[in-house]
């Protein structure tokens, strides 16, 4: 293998590596006919990321003709090659990635200004091909937005927040912080951002749904998308099936596949979720149109807040926008509410994981997405 990237593409390559480093600890590198594939997966295997840099991305792109070569290595060691983006931009003119067969090393050479040459010889391990199976086209919903919009959106959530909930209706998108329903949840600040469909470049919503996924990986992709100025597409379906974040360009394609929290897919619950959206829409409007009386609250304060002020049922993430009055709804809510399945499914590698009790609980849907295991224990240390 021998690839040479020049000029601005070196920075793109570096950003891709940095972006992947947010996902997992190892970088899987595989030159294929379509280009150089850089992949990573997180330790719980609930997030997978792949950058495919097409042969046109490189000034020179040669793949070994005889056998397929692929390897993995600690992503930290690759990251250190591209450590400083600013100095990379200033001084590096050319970056060459070579497979050195004799030494069994992957050689990354940075050609800098004034003839300075930086050579990194990285050891690697052989591995199976890492590939998550996903189909963007089969997803019911697709949103495409400028990366700036997504960056601005994510900014509203604290860096410590792990999971975010995304809900869509026919003309709006809501993002909320997802809070684990434990004892502390009632003390947590709830943040909700509402975006109009007009803000999106493309807005194709076929099913009104609400999904919860990890924010960290989205932030990782945003680092890349923002620097390259490319729009970001979000493909998703029901809760439990993966969300695919995608950035494409004529010479590269990046796909981040993330597990979403699975919910009980009981039809009643589903309907309930939809009505909640409608409510949410209404109350948000109420809030902005100054109808003070509609949000009056009556709290007696000469005594300590009794049980009537603090509902005993655990706070539900999606009903926090609920109209304060209307007790009937509250009752209905309590009936329908049941402990949700909190676990992120390890979607992509379900078939190779030992059949645990958790797996048997899972819906068939989750197991459709499969990939071969890339971790071969008896591979040779190079």
């Amino acid at each position, binding site marked *: 293998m021998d690839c040479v990237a020049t000029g601005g593409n070196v920075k793109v390559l570096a950003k891709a590596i940095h972006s992947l480093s947010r996902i997992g600890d190892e970088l899987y590198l595989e030159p294929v006919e379509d280009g150089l594939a850089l992949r990573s997966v997180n330790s719980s295997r609930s997030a997978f990321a792949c950058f495919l840099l097409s042969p046109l991305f490189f000034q020179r792109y040669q793949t070994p003709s005889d056998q397929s070569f692929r390897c993995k290595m600690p992503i930290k060691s690759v990251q250190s090659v591209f450590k400083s983006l600013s100095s990379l931009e200033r001084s590096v003119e050319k970056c060459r990635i070579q497979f050195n067969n004799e030494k069994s090393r992957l050689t990354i050479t940075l050609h800098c200004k004034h003839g300075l040459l930086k050579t990194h010889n990285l050891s690697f391990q052989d591995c199976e091909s890492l590939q998550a199976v996903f189909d963007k086209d089969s997803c019911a919903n697709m949103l495409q937005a400028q990366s700036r919009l997504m960056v601005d959106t994510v900014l509203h959530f604290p860096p410590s927040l792990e999971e975010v909930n995304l809900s869509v209706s026919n003309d709006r998108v809501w993002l909320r912080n997802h809070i684990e329903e434990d004892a502390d949840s009632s003390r947590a*600040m709830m943040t909700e*951002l509402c975006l109009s469909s007009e803000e999106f470049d493309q807005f194709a919503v076929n099913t009104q749904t609400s999904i919860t996924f990890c924010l960290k990986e989205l932030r990782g992709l945003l680092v890349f998308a923002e620097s390259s100025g490319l729009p970001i597409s979000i493909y998703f379906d029901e809760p439990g099936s993966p969300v695919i974040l995608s950035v494409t360009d004529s010479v590269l394609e990046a796909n981040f596949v993330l597990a979403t929290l699975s919910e009980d897919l009981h039809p009643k619950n589903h309907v309930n979720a939809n009505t909640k959206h409608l409510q949410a829409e209404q109350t948000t409007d109420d809030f902005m149109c100054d109808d003070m009386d509609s949000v009056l609250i009556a*709290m007696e*304060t*000469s005594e300590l807040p009794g049980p009537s002020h*603090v509902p005993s049922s655990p*706070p539900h993430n999606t009903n*926090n926008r609920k109209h304060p009055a209307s007790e009937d709804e509250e009752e209905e809510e309590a009936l329908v509410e049941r402990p949700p399945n909190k676990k992120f499914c390890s979607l992509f590698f379900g078939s190779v994981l030992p059949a645990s009790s958790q797996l048997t609980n899972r819906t068939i849907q989750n197991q459709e997405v499969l990939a071969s295991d890339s971790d071969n224990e008896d591979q040779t240390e190079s």
Partner: protein
Amino acid sequence: MKFRSKIIDVGCLNHFTRVVNTVSKLTKSCVLRLTRDHVYFVLSGKVSTGGVSMWCELLQVNFFDEYQMEGVSADANEIFLEVTPENLSRALKTAQNAKSVKMKLTKKNCPCLTLAAELPSLSSVSRVVTHDIPVDVIPKRLWQDFREPQMPDFDVSIYLPPLKTMKSVVDRMKNLSNYLVMEANLKGEMNLKIETDLVSVTTHFKDLGNPPWGDDGSQTVSQSREDNLMAEVRVDIRKLQQFLTGQQVNPSKAMCNIVHKRILHLIFLHEDVSLQYFIPAVV
């Protein structure tokens, strides 16, 4: 009990944000007191907070374009809420370029201070971000715990040197000792001292000036006082540093009152904001 308010002016929003940021640097939790004319942030000295107390007072009309409140009853037309200023500060931070910010008391799963910001967007429809900050409504019988602290009968009152200078001195002294002695007299002189087994350091300030306090009762003590006589107070240096580091008010007037060996009372005045901070003396 109702509360609803709105800020449109960017200057007011920034100013309010700075006050909230300052408060959030000083304490994890405090009481937000709302009256018809004022908004207060109150921390009353408890052992758990190291005995420090805070009293921050804002004139409502100078910040809010709209402000409506209805207290617990007609004769007790006030609202006391326990809030986490950090949450409020975070919510305001995301509203920095908002077209308008609304704050109101709502009842969600628990009582919340809801802050809604209307943000500029790429389309004709504004983006709306809403933060529900959980609060505890403080019952009326506990209100007395959060009354304005009495202005102590101080021995010396003095203007503070430039806060940046003072901060850099205190920051360095903190590396050497856990306690700092602050002393001042009526000739406009102030010293910051640390003393350890190994080293004694004193920074002298002079010509600081002493604020002319009115003819209220608190002055009788200091009037009969000799100009040269120092009043001193030994305080936990971290508390002082926290105050100097966290403040974002950039006060037009900063002064302190010292009650000899008892309390250090710091006062920041800036236009419509007054921030008082009380640090108890340690032996």
